[in-house]
C-alpha cells in the first residue's frame, strides 16, 4: 500500500519538480537508449541488481539487500518495479518508474528512482541513489560495468630477479 501511494506521488511529479525530501524519499533519474520494454525487463532481473550492488562502493552496499516486490505496467508507456530492502537495519523500498515520453521522431526512455523508508546514519542516500542508478544504466546500455579493478599500476611493482 505504501508503494502504491508513493507511485501516485511519482506520477504526479511529472508536471512538477520533485524535491529532495528526507522524510519522503530520495530521487534520482537517468535516461537510457534501450527500448522501454527491455528496460522494464532489465530492472526486474535479480542478476542485474545483484551485480550492481556488488559493484557499489564499500560501505554503501551494506545497506541494501533487495527482494523484488512488484513489476507491473502502469500504462502502455509506463512501468513500475519495486524492490523491498530486507536488510535488517535499513528496511524500505527502492522504486523504479520507467517511462517512455514521446518526443519528435520517437520517444525518450527515462527512469525515475525513489528510495524511501530507509534511514542512513553516515551514508548519503542521494549519493547512493545516483551511483546505483548510473551503474544500472551502464549495465543496461553496455552489458558491463566500467572498471579498473585488477589493472596494473606502479603501486604493485614487480621485483625482477
Amino acid at each position, binding site marked *: 500500500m505504501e508503494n502504491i501511494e508513493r507511485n501516485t506521488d511519482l506520477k504526479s511529479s511529472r508536471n512538477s519538480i520533485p524535491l529532495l525530501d528526507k522524510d519522503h524519499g530520495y530521487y534520482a533519474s537517468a*535516461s537510457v*537508449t534501450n527500448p522501454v520494454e527491455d528496460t522494464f525487463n532489465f530492472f526486474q532481473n535479480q542478476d542485474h541488481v545483484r551485480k550492481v550492488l556488488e559493484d557499489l562502493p564499500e560501505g554503501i552496499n551494506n545497506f541494501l539487500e533487495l527482494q523484488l516486490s512488484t513489476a507491473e505496467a502502469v500504462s502502455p508507456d509506463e512501468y513500475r518495479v519495486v524492490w523491498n530492502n530486507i536488510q535488517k537495519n535499513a528496511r524500505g523500498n527502492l522504486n523504479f518508474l520507467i517511462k517512455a515520453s514521446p518526443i519528435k521522431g520517437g520517444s525518450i526512455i527515462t527512469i525515475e528512482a525513489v528510495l524511501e523508508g530507509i534511514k542512513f546514519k553516515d551514508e548519503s542516500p542521494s*549519493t547512493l541513489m*545516483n*551511483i546505483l542508478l*548510473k551503474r544500472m*544504466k*551502464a549495465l543496461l*546500455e*553496455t*552489458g*558491463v*560495468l*566500467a*572498471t*579498473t*579493478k*585488477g*589493472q*596494473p*599500476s*606502479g*603501486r*604493485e*611493482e*614487480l*621485483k*625482477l630477479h
Partner: protein
Amino acid sequence: MKALCWEGKQNVVMKNVHDPKILNPNDAIIKVTSAAICGSDLHLYNGVIPSMEKGDILGHETMGIVMEVGSLVKNVKVGDKIVIPFDIGCGHCHHCEEENFSTCDNSNPNFMIPEKLYGHSGAGLFGYSHMYGGYAGGQAEFIRVPYVDTNSLVIPEGIDDDKVLFLSDIFPTGYMAAENCNIKRGDVVAVWGAGPVGLMAIKSAFMLGAERVIAIDHIQARLDIARTIGAETINFDEDDAITEQLRFLTGGRGPDACIDAVGLEAHGHTVLNAIDTVKQKVKLGTDRPDALRQAIQACKKAGTISVPGVYGGFLDKFPFGAAFGKALTFKMGQTHTQKYMKPLLDKILNDEVDPSFVISHRIRIEDGPDAYKQFNENKGDYTKVVLKFH
C-alpha cells in the same frame, strides 16, 4: 611489463608492473608498438591536474597489435594493428550515439568526482587521473582497451606507425579545434601555442579553407615549424602586444577565429599571468588562462573562440564581459576522437597530410623519464616524443 609511472610532481619512473588482463568481455589487450608523450601529459607531470595517484601508468596516445579480445568483441581481431583514441566511449549511450564520445555517460567508473566538480562527468580517459576514470595508460608495453569495438581504428597493413599514431589524439584534436571555428573562405585564424596540437590545428585550419593562419608562441623553434606549414608567426618574447599585432595584421578587424591550444599552463609577460603563476604555485588558483584572455581580446566581433587546450578548474580574471560585448561564440572540450579517426586516416592514406612532421624524438621506454624532463624544460628541441616498442 615495463611502464612509465607517475610518482609525483615532476617525477616519472619506469617500473616493472603486471601485464594487463581482460576485465570485461568487451575489452582487448594490445601489445603497444608506439606511444607518444602529449603536451597535456606535462600538465600531469607538473602536478596541476588533480586526482593523480603515485604509480599511475601514463599515456593516452597509443597504438599497437591486438593480442587478446573478450567474448563480446566484434570489430577487431587478434593480430589487427589498431590506433587507440585517448578518450573512452562506451558506444551505446546517448552521447556516443550522437558521436560526442568524450562526453560518454558510461565509461568513467569514477563519474562521481567530476559530477561533483562539474555537474556532469565526461568520458574516462587513458592515463589521465582518477577523476577521468583512473585507467592505466599506454606508455607501457601492453594496454587494456575497454569497449574496444568503439575505441579502436584498424590500420591497413604496411602503414608506418609514425604516420597514424597521432590519430589517437593530437590530429583529431587539432582538426576538431579548427572545425569548431566554422571556417569560411578567406578567414583568418589565430592559434595560440605552436606545440603539437597547435601545429595540427594550423594544418587543419588550412585544410578547412582558412586563407591565413597566425601562430603565437614564444619558442622560436616551434614557430619555425609553423612557418614550414604556411603560418605567419608572432613571437611574444619579442613583442607581447599580441592583440595590437593581430589587429594590425587583419586590417583592424581581428582574427575571425582564435584557437587556444595552450590551456591551463600559459606563459607570458602580462601582470595577470604573473598573478596566475603565483596563485597556481601556492595552490590558490588552478589554471593560468592568459592565452584564453588574449584570444578573447583579439578575436573579431562575432568571431569564434575554439579551445582544445586543457583546463581543469576555475579561471580568475576571465574577461567574460568582453566575450559578451563582442558577441563571441565559444566551442571547446575534449575531442570526440572516434568521430574523426577514420576520415582523417583517409586523408593520410590519400597523402593529403602526414602528421609525422611534428616528431622530434624517437626513444625507448627506458629513456622515457628523461624525455619527460627534457620535453618539459626544453620545448624548443622537444616538439614531440614517440616511444618505440617491440
